[in-house]
């Protein structure tokens, strides 16, 4: 058993650090419905952590708890070993947690470039007045942000649609733009909500490659939700399995593959 501060090196040579975020006995209810029931798990620095489960298992709700959009009735989110006080979603984002959404949540009225640039909003320190006259620091920061954004745009290979309004893009590209928007904020933890949902095999391969590259090149910790077991098993270092709001498995892909509860959930054994 690893300690929360221990680090180790994976088979493909990446270093996985200590625990950066820990969910402690999270319970979330909507009225009478229990979406998440007493779930605990942790995320380590530099790892790719997957949360899987059938529809309605509470995966997205879990992600929403992490990004501060839902406030759990019970339990605690530990961040860097300290309990995180209740905060607004934008404050969570300011701590370096970026995310994408299951049903793409891009800003449809803006161009790809503007969408990506928006991801850097927390890196901008000049005030309203400085921006109004567009001189000095405001202009400098704008250029810096643009350079960073262009790097990400190059990296995700979406240069050609830079100035296209997002509303005109096909689904797969939109997903990529959303990833770019999250990446450009240089997050310490990146939350991906079904990054490959609705994609064809080719697009899925592309996306998997991007996720691995992001983890590798930017050293980002990634927590992702995915439906597609196959992809998840190949991608992730550790997997949490949820079903009906409960955690039914947690471990390396190999552990999960052999976990009877998981197999039952996925093969549809009747709940009793």
């Amino acid at each position: 058993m690893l300690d929360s501060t221990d680090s180790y090196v994976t088979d493909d040579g990446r270093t996985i650090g200590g625990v950066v975020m820990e969910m402690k006995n999270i319970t979330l209810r909507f009225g009478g419905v229990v979406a998440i029931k007493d779930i605990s798990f942790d995320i380590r620095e530099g790892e790719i952590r997957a949360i899987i489960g059938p529809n309605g298992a509470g995966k997205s709700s879990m992600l929403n708890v992490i990004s501060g959009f839902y406030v759990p009735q019970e339990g605690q989110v530990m961040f860097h070993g300290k309990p995180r006080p209740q905060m607004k979603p934008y404050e969570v984002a300011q701590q370096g947690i970026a995310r994408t959404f299951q049903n793409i949540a891009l800003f449809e009225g803006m161009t790809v470039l503007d969408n990506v640039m928006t991801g850097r909003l927390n890196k901008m320190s000049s005030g309203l007045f400085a921006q109004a006259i567009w001189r000095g620091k405001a202009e400098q920061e704008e250029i810096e942000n643009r350079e960073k954004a262009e790097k990400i745009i190059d990296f995700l290979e979406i240069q050609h649609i830079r100035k296209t309004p997002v509303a005109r893009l096909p689904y797969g590209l939109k997903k990529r733009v959303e990833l770019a928007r999250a990446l450009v904020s240089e997050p310490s933890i990146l939350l991906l909500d079904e990054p490959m949902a609705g994609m064809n095999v080719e697009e899925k391969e592309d996306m998997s490659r991007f996720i691995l590259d992001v983890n590798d090149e930017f050293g980002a910790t990634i927590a992702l939700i995915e439906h597609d077991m196959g992809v998840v098993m190949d991608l992730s270092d550790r997997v949490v399995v949820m079903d009906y709001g409960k955690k039914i498995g947690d471990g390396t892909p190999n552990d999960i593959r052999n976990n009877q509860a998981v197999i039952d959930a996925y093969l549809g054994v009747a709940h009793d």
Partner: protein
Amino acid sequence: MPEQLVFAMEVFLNGLMAGVLYALVALGFVLIFKASGIFNYAQGVMALFSAMTLVGIMKGQVPFAHVINVIFGTDVHYFGWTVPALLAIILTVAVMVLFAWAVQKYIFSHLVGQEPIILFMATIGLAYFLEGVGDLMWNSEIKKLDVGLPQGINEAIDNYTFNIFDYGFFIDNLDIVATLIAALLVGGLVIFSQYSKEGRAMRAVADDHQAALSVGVSLNFIWIMVWSVAGFVALVAGIMWGTKSGVQFSLSLIALKALPVLMLGGFTSIPGAIVGGLIIGVGEKLFEFAIGPMVGGATENWFAYVLALIFLVFRPQGLFGEKIIERV
């Protein structure tokens, strides 16, 4: 009983009566909004237009007389006949149905799927258009409207309350009639939407356009119907207000009285419109009674909005509006 309390009771009752009329106007908004997502700013002008049409038909006015006279150099004003009130009302309803059809065919069938604000703007354009047409058609004089509704203080209530409180309450007969008619109208609408085939189709459309389409409900027909019903409601409101003040431009401004009611009651709820109307009616009258004299009076216009605003801050979807669940 202390005098002020007695006065407050009188104000309260009158507020309720005023509230019923507000609710009536608000109802027209709700019907259209529920079925088609259109926030119909023209509702007030529709009230004016329908009341003008009613008077015009009753008096046998020649439509567009002024324009005709100017173009052809003629001097026609009246056909020389008069039409009984009931028949005139039926004819006016027919005009409003025709109007509903035209609105649907020439405007909103071309705007399907647009954003709400675009639809809203279109109704403001419609309001301008209708205002211009109405004046050209029936001229801009103040027209006396008399379809036989009683007016003036209700003696019975005056005497009755005088015996109890030593102060006779003032309740206008017109308000009592208006309340009864509004109640009948609302009851009728509820029965219509619950029990008739068209009514059920209307509710189906309100719930889910796509689903309603897929089970074979004609959206076009429903929308025309909803606009017609709203036109009818506008006519009733126009008659009530027009009886008191004569039919004139300011009837179109009663829409502004209905907006706070909508905020309070929710844009999609018929009971909301009624309860909201009553709350606004009573609230603004009581505020004017209690606080008005201290701040110089004439508070009703803004107080209705402020009341609705305060309310909304605590309940953003209105009184009966559907609860907003935010998801990502």
